[in-house]
Every structure is written in structure tokens, then in C-alpha cells.
């Protein structure tokens, strides 16, 4: 079983860059962009998978972190482009358009926000948790819509994609490699974390919180740390997503974005290492392939998703690799 899952994972890991390289070779930059989109969404969902898949924390508000990352990228890019300092008092702070700095800032801001949201939300559980995370995301969403400084509902255009030392981010392949590299990093961190002591405690907390507390592990701390890490990863994905689209807007913060991230995970296989990757591939391809066919493409997308839930237990990875055995 485990070997089969490994095989599926390796295939999934190779298929995306292989397609991207092939497309690049054939002079079809758009397909490289599509692969980049897959990698970025998979990265965002990998972040969520940590909270949702391992920790059972069904956050319906991860768009908040995704959007925060996006806005950090957007705001930095705008300020850097227009040479307007981010802050004038107490110190003058110039913006940079270097991605690593932007990622760091995204992660830190999202981490702080996640810490705040988590401290309040994690007192609840189950559906209440779903809804309270949604509530926080909605607050940020409405704030972004009605906050005129950075475009409100219209969002913020990124005139020139942010840069990365030594690479030309305007080149689709270079940008893809950045996104994919980050995805691989996140996946290996996810896998390491899942098998670690922390991962064991996190997964146990999902299954039986009282039991975990009774052996002397504080469930709240475990969950909070997981939630924060999760939000940080998703935020980095958000920064990349904004750079990919050269645009960030409140729709990145909307509840349907949160929903889409959840859907990606379930589609691919909840809690599975490569679930988000499989989910992102499926979702983006469906959306892309169906969109051109008929104006009623969403109907067919719905039917396909439905078929996947009904007949493919455990998402795509579950379908290919079978049930998980928990060591």
C-alpha cells in the first residue's frame, strides 16, 4: 500500500514539471503558466492540508492568509514600482520587489494574524470552528473591499512582477521553477512534520482531544502552532499567486476561495501528502478544459466533482493508492 502511494506521489511530482518543460520547449508559454498556477494552488492547499488534513482543523477562512500574502506582494510591488515608502514615521521604510523578502513578510504577517485568529477560534471545534474562521476571513474581505487605499473591490495591479535574485521572473519557466521549488519544499516539510513527534501529537489531537490532554500534551498549543504554520505556507502561496496574475483583489480573500482550497484538498485526498497536488491538477485542468467547451461548463464541473466524491473515496490519491494505514 505505502509503496503504491509512493509511486503515485513520484508520478505526480514529475508530471507537473515535465509538462511545464515540454510546453516551454514547444513555445507554449501559457501552459507553463497553467502549470505554475497548479503549483501555487497546490502550495496553498498544502498549507491548509496541514491544518485540515493532519489537525482536523477545517478552516473555512484560509483565503484570509492567501489574500494577505497576495496583498503583501501587491503592496510591495506597487510601492517599489512607484518609489513610495511603505512607512514614513517613525522610520522610513522603503518597499522592495524581491520575492524572498516578500515571502518572509507575507509569512510573518499571516503568522501573526493566524496566531490571533487561532487563539480565539481554537476554543471552538467542529462546525463552530469552520464558521468562526469564515467570520474572520469575511471581516478581512469586507475590509479589503471597502478600503480605498489599495483599490478596494477593484484590487491592485502589479505592473512588474516581483523579482528573484539571479532569475528572470518574467520568464514563465523561471517563475514556474520558483513556484515549484517552493511547493517541493513545502511538501517535504509537510511529510517530515507529519511523521514527527509534533505530527503525531497533531494527528492524535484531531482524533481525540481529551485523550491527548490526559497524557499531558496541550491540544491548544499543538493546534495553534499547526494553524500558524499552515497560514504561513498559504500566505506564501498567495504572494506567488498575486505575482502570477500580476493582480491582487478581494476575491483572493473571499469565502469561495477558501471553499476552493478545501475542495482541492478533498478532491486530491484529505491528509495525503500529494492530495493537494492531485487536487490542484484536477481542478485547474477541469476548469481550463471545460471552460472553452460550453457556457454551461460549471454544470459539468459539478457533475465531475460529484462523481469523484461518490465513487472515489479518499480523493484521487485514495483512488490510485488505496486506503491509508496509520503505522
Amino acid at each position, binding site marked *: 500500500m505505502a509503496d503504491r502511494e509512493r509511486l503515485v506521489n513520484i508520478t505526480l511530482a514529475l508530471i507537473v514539471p515535465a509538462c511545464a518543460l515540454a510546453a516551454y520547449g514547444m513555445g*507554449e*508559454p*501559457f*501552459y507553463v*503558466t*497553467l502549470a505554475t*498556477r497548479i503549483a501555487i494552488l497546490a502550495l496553498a492547499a498544502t498549507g491548509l492540508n496541514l491544518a485540515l488534513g493532519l489537525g482536523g482543523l477545517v478552516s473555512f477562512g484560509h483565503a484570509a492568509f492567501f489574500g494577505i500574502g497576495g496583498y503583501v506582494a501587491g503592496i510591495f510591488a506597487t510601492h517599489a514600482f512607484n518609489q513610495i515608502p511603505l512607512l514614513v514615521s517613525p522610520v522610513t521604510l522603503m518597499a522592495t520587489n524581491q520575492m524572498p523578502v516578500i515571502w518572509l513578510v507575507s509569512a510573518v504577517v499571516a503568522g501573526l494574524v493566524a496566531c490571533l485568529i487561532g487563539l480565539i477560534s481554537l476554543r471552538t471545534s467542529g462546525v463552530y470552528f469552520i464558521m468562526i474562521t469564515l467570520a474572520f476571513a469575511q471581516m478581512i474581505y*469586507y475590509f479589503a*473591499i*471597502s478600503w*480605498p487605499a489599495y*483599490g*478596494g*473591490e*477593484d*484590487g491592485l*495591479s502589479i*505592473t512588474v512582477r516581483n523579482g528573484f535574485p539571479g532569475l528572470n521572473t518574467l520568464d514563465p519557466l523561471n517563475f514556474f521553477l520558483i513556484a515549484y521549488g517552493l511547493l517541493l519544499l513545502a511538501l517535504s516539510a509537510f511529510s517530515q512534520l507529519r511523521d514527527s513527534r509534533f505530527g503525531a501529537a497533531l494527528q492524535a489531537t484531531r482524533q481525540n482531544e481529551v485523550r491527548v490532554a490526559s497524557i499531558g500534551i496541550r491540544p491548544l498549543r499543538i493546534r495553534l502552532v499547526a494553524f500558524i504554520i499552515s497560514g504561513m505556507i498559504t500566505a506564501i502561496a498567495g504572494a506567488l*499567486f498575486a505575482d502570477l*496574475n*500580476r*493582480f491582487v*483583489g478581494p*476575491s*483572493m480573500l473571499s469565502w469561495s476561495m477558501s471553499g476552493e482550497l478545501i475542495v482541492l484538498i478533498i478532491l486530491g485526498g484529505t491528509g495525503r501528502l500529494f492530495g493537494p497536488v492531485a487536487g490542484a491538477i484536477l481542478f485547474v485542468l477541469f*476548469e*481550463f478544459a471545460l*471552460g*472553452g467547451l460550453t*457556457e*454551461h*461548463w*460549471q454544470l459539468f464541473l459539478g457533475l465531475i466533482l460529484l462523481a469523484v466524491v461518490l465513487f472515489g473515496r479518499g480523493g484521487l490519491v485514495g483512488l490510485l493508492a488505496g486506503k491509508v494505514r496509520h503505522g
Partner: protein
Amino acid sequence: EPVKIGMITTLSGGGAGLGIDIRDGFLLAIKESGNKDIKVIVEDDAQKPELAVQIADKMVQSEKVDILTGIVWSNLAMAVVPGVVGQGTFYLSTNAGPSALAGANCNPNYFNVAYQNDNLHEAMGNYANTANYKKTFILAPNYPAGTDALTGFKRFYKGALAGELYTKVGQTDYATEIAQIRASGADSVYFFLPGGMGIAFMKQYSQSGISTPVMGPGFSFDQDVLGAIGDAAIGVKNSSHWSKDLDNAANKKYVAAFKAEYKRLPSLYATQGYDTANLILSAVAKASVKDKDAFRAALKEAKFDSVRGKFKFGNNNHPIQDIYVREVIKEDGVLTNKIVATSFTDHQDAYAASCKM
């Protein structure tokens, strides 16, 4: 070599009616022209900016379209247009006219064939003076197009405001706002609530027992929504740069053809689609789309039979056009509009001056 046009518009979800009208108007013009060298690719953006960007990338990079067009919503336009025109592709707006693209960020490859977002509201502000309103209550959703709308209205309106309200985007219940209107002692109401918001507002307003007259931009009283509002809309004044009863040959032919083709009356969105297609056709006849400078000049000339009568571009590639005041009437059992006044002639938007082009 055929001219490739990519159309990104909203064909699914709640806002689909607008996109469908744009598409239908556009395709009607192409069909009428009989020009076989034009290839139009239509895709649905589902009113999501990210999806619109993805489709735009595909059309530009993979399908190698020469011209993009079709977007309904300002926020989608803001996401798509800067990138597209930056890559040297032409973008012709069939509806959205955000101020950001009219002023400092104007671009020679970006043409707006519809209006600048403030225009219709400005026209209504101007009309409110003519109608001698002294105390108007104004409301709009709390987002950029909403604040632009009220700013536009106030730019020309000379009376006092009985109140100014910003509602929640997507709000469906307006009892609170209506109560405030009642209490304010306003002599008129101006609202900008696009789509379902406006329908809900009008239905509820008409049931509230208030008789204060209502005004709105054409969006809220056009063919796509009038049926849903029902008789409550009769008599309402609204502004538009086009009307079904505009007296010119092109318009008569267009209205009849649209009715024959689609079994319904055209809306202003359909009209914008139709005019955009005709503009492109006129330019294609004059210059090759591959010769960007020549083609751009041909577009800018705007020598085509606009159903609006006269049409020309200002320095910022936004229209200079007449804006009318219409009144909702019932004609042969169908709700529609007739022109009752002209608010502006040769009106240009307020941002043109800051466009360095």
C-alpha cells in the same frame, strides 16, 4: 490572415445576463458584416478576476489573439487590462470604465467603447438640477464603482444632499435604507445598485408607500432587469448613452436585427458589444491588425456607424458622446425606455486631463 478576437465575459452565475448580451450584440455585428476573416473566441470568466487573468493569458500567449474585449466588471478589467495592453495586445472595453484606466494609467492600446464609470451618474446629477431637485438622497454600494458613482453624481448636482449612504455589496434587503429615506424628507432619490441589488431595492421601495421620485443610471433600468422589477419601474428617470428609440438608421436596423435574431429587445450592454464589433470591423477594413500603429490610428478614428448616432474618442481613448435621460414606459405590454431629455452633449469624462497621451 484572419483577425483573432478574444472575448472574455461573464456567461455563468448571477451576472451572466450582462455578458450574454455583450456577446450576442458583438456576434450579431460580426455576422451582419459577413466578414469571414474574423475569428472570435468566447470564454466565460464566471465573474472571477483570477479566472479572467488566466483566460487572458491563454488568449494572448497561446491563441495569439490580436484583440481582447468583452469584460463586464471594473474589477475584472483592472485585473486583466494592464497586463494585456502591456504585452502590446489591444483591449476594447465593452462595458467597464474604471477611472484608473481613464486617467494617469491610460494606455494607447486600451479603448473604451462604452463609457467612463462616472458618466451616467454625472448625467443624472446634471439632470437633477434641471428637474429642480433640491434635496436628493443618494446611495450606492461601498466599493470603488459605488463611490465613483456618487462622486460623479455630486460633481454636477447643485442641490443639497438629504443623505448619502453606502450599502453592503450584494445586499438584498433595503428596509433600513428606505426608512432613512422616508425620514430624511428628501425630494428625490438617486441610487446606483447594479444587478440584483437594484431589482431588490426598487421592489422594496415601491412597496414601502414612499412617493419620492427615484432616479438611477441606465444600468438599473435596462432591458435585462426591467422585466424583473415589473411595473414598479414605470416612470423612473434614468441616464444612458443609448436608447432603443434613438432616431438614427443604424439604431433602427440594429434593434430590429437583434429582435429578429434573439427574440428579445437589446440592452445597453448588447449595444456596447455591437458598437465595439463595428468599431473593430471599421478598423480592420482600413489597416492590418499586425501593423499596430496603423490599426491603433484606425481605431482612434472611430469611423463607424454607431447606433448611438455620433461617437468619437477623446485623448484618453474614452468616448465623447451624448448622454440622455430616459423614462421607463410600458410599450406593447413590455417595459422599456424612451428618451425624454438630453443631459449632456459631447460629454467627456473628468479624468481625461490627467491622461498624458
